[in-house]
């Protein structure tokens, strides 16, 4: 297995081609680095060689580092994982620094050989960090190419010199959106931003690189930071302008991340400390912080959930075996309301033919207009073209005529949340579509098995729960009814893959998985309001945990009447078993007052005429007075988090969840559960099951039985087990 291929052309220029076998995109491994190192040695050691081009045998350059290598280094380190990680990272740096210095005399900066990066397409992570060490970066004008350093998105930061080199190249201000937001851009924008040097037609990639090598002078090879008198663009921390930038960057990162994301902190520390020392020390500092972040359990959890496990789920980790491809060709969407319109849009965007049905032509057209508005916005932002818009709209047929559903291989029903209405539609539509058609219902609250009773083919009946707004939310929850068959599951998963979202597959119990966990989040907050906890403390406690919205704001967004409806329905369903809560009084009060949330411009918050939140509603205190004695921040946070996490554990215990990876990935993508934690199960593993049980027992004693740790968690605490230890990637739930 060879990742890097070496060839010396007749003109004396070496071509080093990165081409990982059996992979659609290159990723960097430990052996990859060793091979690259060997080829660089060859180039630098042979006087007959003029220079080298590092390119790729694929239509992209590289997707990044193989993150499992980092985990392996850590493993290998045994008792001293820090040493093993630091050594591993520094080995990579030595190769890149060798490329960068290319045999130059350290004093005169003369005598180096030009080494050029020639990217046929996408270069991300280490796939940009290696080019940044080269003397010139050429990128083909490949429309699909993305250039950037997205590491921060998975809980680490560019630790292959990208942080240090980009800051030295662009200055903190200009590097910040790439480093802190992980922004990736097309080649032309990358060039404008100074990330890369040249964008050339794909077929001139190598010839352009060669021409540059032929004409490169000694001075062309010297990086600004290796030249005498280098000054960092925008200034270093104690330079007057730099001071303001560093104050601002630190404050912004601190405020925006709510202090909850260690990687952003570590990266900024590397930037600051690195800015005050020469390049080689800066690289070592970057490596120390990178090692530090790799050792942070939060980072490992984020890598696992947001990279490895998310990827696995998208690639069909839980797809039933032995079922042939079920890609959807024509989908019927029943109901052109907000959900239906969104489902039609994402389907058409994936190139699937859509029949969008509603009771009136006007309603159906309105649903289609959502796609039109989306396309127009894309055109205005130069992300789409009139041609693409036309193609998109041509895929959607908006009609009242159910006969148009003929030939659909998937139906997604998104009509009013009422068992009777849904049953009627199921029967009508099943009579029209072919026998093979899979019928999916988009419901967030109604039991699938109950709805399946209306179906003549219950094994082909399934739940597909989209989140709102459909085109923005990344998760889709697939719910198996009691009789749902494997083909329906495979079909749903293939559909979700087509529309490029992340699926989880769960079993049919009240509120499935996501809503089952979110509802207690709001309910716990409502209880606190009733108890007299300062509402701002509740909201801020949640935000500091990394939730995108405080629970009261979430209540306003999802609407108070929905909360009231769920409350009423749950009461009816559970009867005497319903756990009475003073939090219900809060919902009831707002509901009775007609403060239904954002849609009525009043709820837990006040809003101005345009619907902008102006602040928490002060009147809430008249009905639920704020008490003198306020709980600690940690107390509030534990209540808000455990209310959700224990539901996740119960969902696992009851078999609603079959795979903890789905529980973790689903929680982060579905409702923004504390991303830094890697998800509820990862968080419990970070805490340790014993500590978790301790926290819950303490909460149960003070706040009620709902915090009583489930038997599974107690058993794990007793045995000293972790969730990923017990239910890891391959293991299924008990």
């Amino acid at each position: 297995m060879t990742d890097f291929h070496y060839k010396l052309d007749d003109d004396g220029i070496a071509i080093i081609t990165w081409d990982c076998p059996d992979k659609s995109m290159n990723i960097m491994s430990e052996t990859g680095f060793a091979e690259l190192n060997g080829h660089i040695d060859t180039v630098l050691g042979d006087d007959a060689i003029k220079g080298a081009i590092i390119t790729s045998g694929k239509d992209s350059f590289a997707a990044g580092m193989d993150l499992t290598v980092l985990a392996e280094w850590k493993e290998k380190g045994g008792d001293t994982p820090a040493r093993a990680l630091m050594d591993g990272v520094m080995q990579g740096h030595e190769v890149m620094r060798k490329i960068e210095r290319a045999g130059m005399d350290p004093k005169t900066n003369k005598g180096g050989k030009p080494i050029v990066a020639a990217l046929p397409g996408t270069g991300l992570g280490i796939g940009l960090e290696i080019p940044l060490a080269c003397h010139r970066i050429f990128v083909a004008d490949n429309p699909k190419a993305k250039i950037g350093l997205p590491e921060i998105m998975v809980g680490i930061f560019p630790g292959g010199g990208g942080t240090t080199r980009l800051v030295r190249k662009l200055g903190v201000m200009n590097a910040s959106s790439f480093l802190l937001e992980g922004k990736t851009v097309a080649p032309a924008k990358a060039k404008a931003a100074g990330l890369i040097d040249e964008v050339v037609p794909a077929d001139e990639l190598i010839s352009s690189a060669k021409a540059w090598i032929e004409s490169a002078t000694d001075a062309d090879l010297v990086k600004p930071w290796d030249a005498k008198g280098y000054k960092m663009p925008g200034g270093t921390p104690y330079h007057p302008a730099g001071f303001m930038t560093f104050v601002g960057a630190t404050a912004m990162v601190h405020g925006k991340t709510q202090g909850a994301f260690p990687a952003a902190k570590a990266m900024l520390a590397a930037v600051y400390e690195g800015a005050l020392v020469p390049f080689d020390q800066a690289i070592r500092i970057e490596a120390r912080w990178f090692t530090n972040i790799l050792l942070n359990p939060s980072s490992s959890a984020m890598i696992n959930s947001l990279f490895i496990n998310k990827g696995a789920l998208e690639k069909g980790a839980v797809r039933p075996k032995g079922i042939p491809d079920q890609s959807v060709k024509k989908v019927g969407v029943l109901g052109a309301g907000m959900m239906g319109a969104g489902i039609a849009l994402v389907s058409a965007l994936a190139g699937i033919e859509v029949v969008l049905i509603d009771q009136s032509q006007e309603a159906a057209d309105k649903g289609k207009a959502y796609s039109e508005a989306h396309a127009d916005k894309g055109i205005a932002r130069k992300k789409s073209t009139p041609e693409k818009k036309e193609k998109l709209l041509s895929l959607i047929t908006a009609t009242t005529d159910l006969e148009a559903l003929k030939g659909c291989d998937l139906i997604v029903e998104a009509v009013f949340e009422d068992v009777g209405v849904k049953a009627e539609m199921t029967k009508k539509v099943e009579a029209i579509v072919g026998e093979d058609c899979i019928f999916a219902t988009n419901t967030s609250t109604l039991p699938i098995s109950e709805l399946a009773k209306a179906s003549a083919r219950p094994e082909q009946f399934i739940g597909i729960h989209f989140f709102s707004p459909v085109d923005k939310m990344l998760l889709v929850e697939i719910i198996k009814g009691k009789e749902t068959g494997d083909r329906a599951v495979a079909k749903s998963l293939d559909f979700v893959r087509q529309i490029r979202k992340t699926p989880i597959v769960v079993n049919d119990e009240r509120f499935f998985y996501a809503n089952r966990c979110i509802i207690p989040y709001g309910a716990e907050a409502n209880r606190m309001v009733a108890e007299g906890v300062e509402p701002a403390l509740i909201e801020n406690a949640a935000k500091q945990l990394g939730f995108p919205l405080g629970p009261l704001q979430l209540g306003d967004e999802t609407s108070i009447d929905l909360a009231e409806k769920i409350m009423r329905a749950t009461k009816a369903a559970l009867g005497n078993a319903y756990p009475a809560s003073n939090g219900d009084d809060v919902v009831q009060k707002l509901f009775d007052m007609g403060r239904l949330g954002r849609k009525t411009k009043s709820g837990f918050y006040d809003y101005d005429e345009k619907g902008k939140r102006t602040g928490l509603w002060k009147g809430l205190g008249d009905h639920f007075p704020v008490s003198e004695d306020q709980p600690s921040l940690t107390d509030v946070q534990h209540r808000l988090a455990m209310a959700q996490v224990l539901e996740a554990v119960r969902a696992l215990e009851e078999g609603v969840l079959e795979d903890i990876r789905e529980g973790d990935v689903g929680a982060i993508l579905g409702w923004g559960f504390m991303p830094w934690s890697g998800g509820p199960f990862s968080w419990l593993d970070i805490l340790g099951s014993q500590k978790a049980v301790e926290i819950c027992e303490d909460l149960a004693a003070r706040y009620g039985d709902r915090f009583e740790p489930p038997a599974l968690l107690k058993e794990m605490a007793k045995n000293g087990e972790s969730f990923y230890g017990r239910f890891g990637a391959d293991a299924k739930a008990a």
Partner: protein
Amino acid sequence: MTHDAYIYDTARSPRGKGKKDGSLHEVSAVRLSAEVLNELQSRTGFDSKDVDDLIWGNVSQVGEQGGCLARSAVLYSDLDESVAGVSVNRFCASGLEAVNMAAGQVMGGMGNAYIAGGVESMSRVPMGSDGGAIAVDPTLAMKAYFVPQGISSDIIATKYGFTRDMCDEYAVESQKRAAQAQKEGRFDKSVFGITDQNGLEILGHDEMVRGETNMQTLGSLNPSFKAQGEVMPGFDAIALLKYPELEKINHVHHAGNSSGIADGAAAILIGNKEFGERNGLKPRARIKATAKIGTDPTIMLTGPVPVTERILERTGMNIGDIDLFEVNEAFASVVLRFQHYFNVDHSKLNVNGGAIAMGHPLGATGAVILGTLLDEMERSDKETGLATLCIGSGMGAATILERV
């Protein structure tokens, strides 16, 4: 064996506006220091060979204020070269800290006499010129939840419910009192005119006082820290991380209810009994106790409360035992917090106005307000006084004086 530390005399420059158009902008920090030292020496006539050290408070110790400004000031002045010189930085309380250190040295028997005080030429060496890691080193800034002082003053106002009107009312009163005190010559005991090398006066009085200030004039001023709190770079978010019970920060402070940026210097002669006797000087007051404390760096400026509790506990006194208070008017909310916490009558507190009216030359202010306190104790014939200041990065300092 401990000794009593006495204040023999004080002298201070007038406070000049700390901008390029301020009267003292043309006077260097070293010369301003030397002028005050010479004044103190000439009005008391002590033999400077009896003085061990000049302990000189100063915040931005770079440029002309760098390189151990205290030693430079000694050499620039008429003091004997045997007076050593050490610069100290406890931010806004540097001048008081210098006094407290000197008192401690005397009490501990390390020499007979010290000169203490401080200087700040904010017009010539702007605040922040000396850098500092706490704002820019991400590890530290995030661990300490760093926000600038203005944000901290607004956190105090928000947390303790001080409205814009309350802060403005306080500021109007400070201006009124300062103007009245100036009119009555209450500062004349300490203040002397700064002259040029030919004896021509450059500045003879605190030049920033605006006695005509009223609620209307202040009402037109925009809040100073709203933009940096709410927009760029958004310090309020950090404040809320530390104070999650607050929904948002009310930005009530502005140029009119915050201390003014100023140039100035002040010196205090401190010695034991023996020093006074040898130099024929009568002590004006005894330094009864000193204290300092570290507090939460984010709200930063609440130190006067806990440091006062500490100094009272140390001396076995109650708040009611103090006849007069000087609480540095860094921001209106700082004084309001002190006043409300201890329930101190405003008639005992900052009776001649403060930094909101006259300005706050950082390194000097501690010694300035201690001199003002002593002058007022004598004028109104009070026995005991307390001076305290809030301090950057979350600290507090206090001194109790007792007349002898």
